């Protein structure tokens, strides 16, 4: 340690300073702690490029479309963050969502059960899948890569068996269809936005006050206010745009309002962010991902943590499957298949979740999911073939993983993370 650090008291209670805060942030970024920066920058660059090449990209219809397109991937990615945090991988999340969607469709259409029974059964199926995967990884000790690769193949078959060799089952339940296809009435959209931003502001300010009263180091008030203002601006802009009329012909139908799937994603994001950052369970997830041995010696039941991460991942895959089924209004053997899993892993990694474990947030999945959705959407507008889309998405995933690995190396070199 240097001599200057010796001079510092154990706890700094000096008044927080905006300039220091910015300087500290910049030094963290230089030290490899880039967080969601690549995702945010990537999002801006991609939007700018697509908007220049295809003005239709900026239309309100397309903006609303992005949410529906990215929702399932972002939700599956949120679950994957948990598995990635403990340093494992779940390659079966895509087809797990397909299995759960099949269960939903069969219960709804073939057995005519009410939507809530079908939804609960689908999520229950996901939880059961997660329990089995987690048990095999944590208790039996098979590497997660192998377990979930086997499950990837097996679930592909299970979907075929459930759908009787590839039948397409239509989903006609109004509630399930509403998830990815309906919009909130504009006033309700505004009300939820005000509620959300107000709640966020209140939580931030209460936290600041509590820490100040206890004499702990706080972020500068200005930074906190700026953060709140930024969230408010983004939310207000999004709600305003989504509340504009999107219908080509208002005489036939009116199409406006925030898609129902948006509040669903926001609620899931809030719940999982709370779990990860404010509960002991979340702390233990990070501990297991950072150093299993230290976690075990601290008295944490590491096996239980690992199993629970797989349960959350497969459970969220089920929710993603429900959203996908709702969007397609049907379930077929390809639901959750092809590139859904890679998109989801890509979303988590692009958002800043490390493939090496111990680093990531639920927000990463949403930001990364937005990047993935913009790429799919923009490339579609440009009229590229699916061949080009696959190549580009693969390249972006590789790029994100490369950024992750390099920032990790940089972090190791500067003793930062």
């Amino acid at each position, binding site marked *: 340690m240097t001599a200057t650090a010796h001079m510092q008291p*154990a706890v700094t209670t000096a008044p927080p300073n905006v300039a220091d805060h910015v300087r500290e942030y910049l030094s963290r970024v230089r030290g490899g702690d880039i967080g969601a920066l690549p995702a945010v920058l990537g999002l801006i660059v991609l939007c700018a490029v697509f908007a220049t090449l295809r003005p239709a990209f900026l239309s309100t219809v397309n903006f609303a479309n992005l949410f529906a397109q990215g929702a399932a991937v972002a939700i599956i990615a949120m679950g994957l963050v948990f598995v990635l945090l403990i340093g494992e991988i779940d390659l079966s999340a895509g087809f797990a969502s397909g299995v759960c969607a099949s269960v939903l469709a069969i219960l709804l259409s073939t057995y005519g059960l009410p939507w809530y029974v079908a939804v609960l059964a689908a999520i229950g199926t996901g939880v059961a899948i997660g329990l089995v995967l987690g048990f095999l990884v944590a208790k039996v000790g098979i590497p997660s890569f192998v377990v979930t690769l086997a499950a990837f193949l097996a679930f592909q078959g299970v979907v075929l068996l459930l759908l009787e060799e590839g039948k397409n089952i239509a989903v006609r339940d109004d509630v399930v269809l509403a998830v990815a296809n309906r919009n909130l009435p504009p006033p309700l959209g505004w009300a939820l936005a005000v509620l959300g931003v107000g709640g966020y502001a209140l939580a931030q300010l209460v936290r600041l006050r509590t820490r100040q009263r206890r004499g702990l180091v706080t972020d500068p008030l200005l930074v906190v206010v700026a953060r709140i203002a930024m969230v408010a601006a983004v939310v207000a802009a999004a709600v305003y745009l989504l509340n504009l009329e999107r219908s080509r012909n208002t005489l036939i139908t009116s199409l406006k309002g925030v898609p129902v799937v948006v509040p669903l994603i926001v609620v899931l994001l809030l719940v999982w962010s709370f779990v990860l950052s404010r509960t002991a369970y979340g702390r233990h997830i990070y501990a297991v991902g950072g150093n299993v041995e230290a976690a075990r010696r601290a008295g944490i039941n590491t096996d239980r943590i690992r199993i629970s991460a797989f349960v959350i991942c497969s459970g969220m895959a089920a929710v993603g499957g429900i959203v996908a089924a709702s969007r397609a209004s049907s379930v077929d053997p390809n639901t959750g298949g092809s590139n859904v899993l890679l998109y989801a892993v890509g979303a988590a990694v692009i958002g800043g979740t490390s493939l090496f474990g111990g680093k990531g947030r639920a927000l990463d999945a949403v930001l990364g999911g937005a990047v993935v959705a913009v790429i799919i959407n923009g490339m579609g507008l440009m009229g590229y073939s699916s061949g080009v889309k696959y190549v580009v998405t693969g390249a972006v995933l590789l790029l994100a993983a490369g950024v992750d690995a390099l920032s990790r190396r940089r972090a190791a070199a500067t003793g930062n993370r």
Partner: protein
Amino acid sequence: MAATPLLELRGIDKSFGPVQVLRDVDLLVPPGEVTALVGDNGAGKSTLVKCVSGIYSADAGELFFDGTPVTINGPRDAAALGIEIVYQDLALCDNLDVVQNMFLGREKRTGLVLDEPTMEQLAAKTLAELSVRTVKSLRQHVSSLSGGQRQTVALAKAVLWESRLVILDEPTAALGVAQTAQVLELVRRMADNGLAVVLISHNMNDVFAVSDRIAALYLGRMVAQVRTADVTHAQVVELITSGRSGSLGLAAEGAAADEYGPDGALR
């Protein structure tokens, strides 16, 4: 020597199959003092510590804590008695900050939610009590700390839990000169605050710099427990390497060779 030792071991035996690692080991650990546990590789230091921490159970022998006989069946029992062990590494999560590491597995919470302000205050208080000035921010990740700072955090973590006996396994093995001095200073302060400290070390300089008493293990036997002030550097080295030094250690030369020579070589 203090009136009642905090920890007393009597006649501890431990074998792994045919290999007897500890033979009739006695050990006294008084509070407020640093007891250095020295011995060559394979002398049984780690095994002895693991018997105390509940990772191994001894085959024979008694364990007294604060004058009362106790049995320790696992790390949780040891923690409940107030025994904390600081391992050379493996103790901290790089991706968590100082406060998060100090409270790992024993987080303070109000209801479901973590009580971060209280944890931060307690961590700050503990570091202040130990006069730690080297850790700049309690919210910096442990990965950004130097080796000495990490060891400091690990020690502070042990102190935080109202522990009464802290066992340090080679705390300075990976540290530079200045950092070693800092950690030793901290070890001294922990003992001065009334804790019983057991310091496992290979480094004679460390042992003489900080310890009040030295317990030397030789091929699974406790050959001497002496006050540091009463022995010389050379005597301790002799105790470690040959089990005897003048009037200290194993009595008869022949007996020692006969009894321990062959299977000692296996270890």
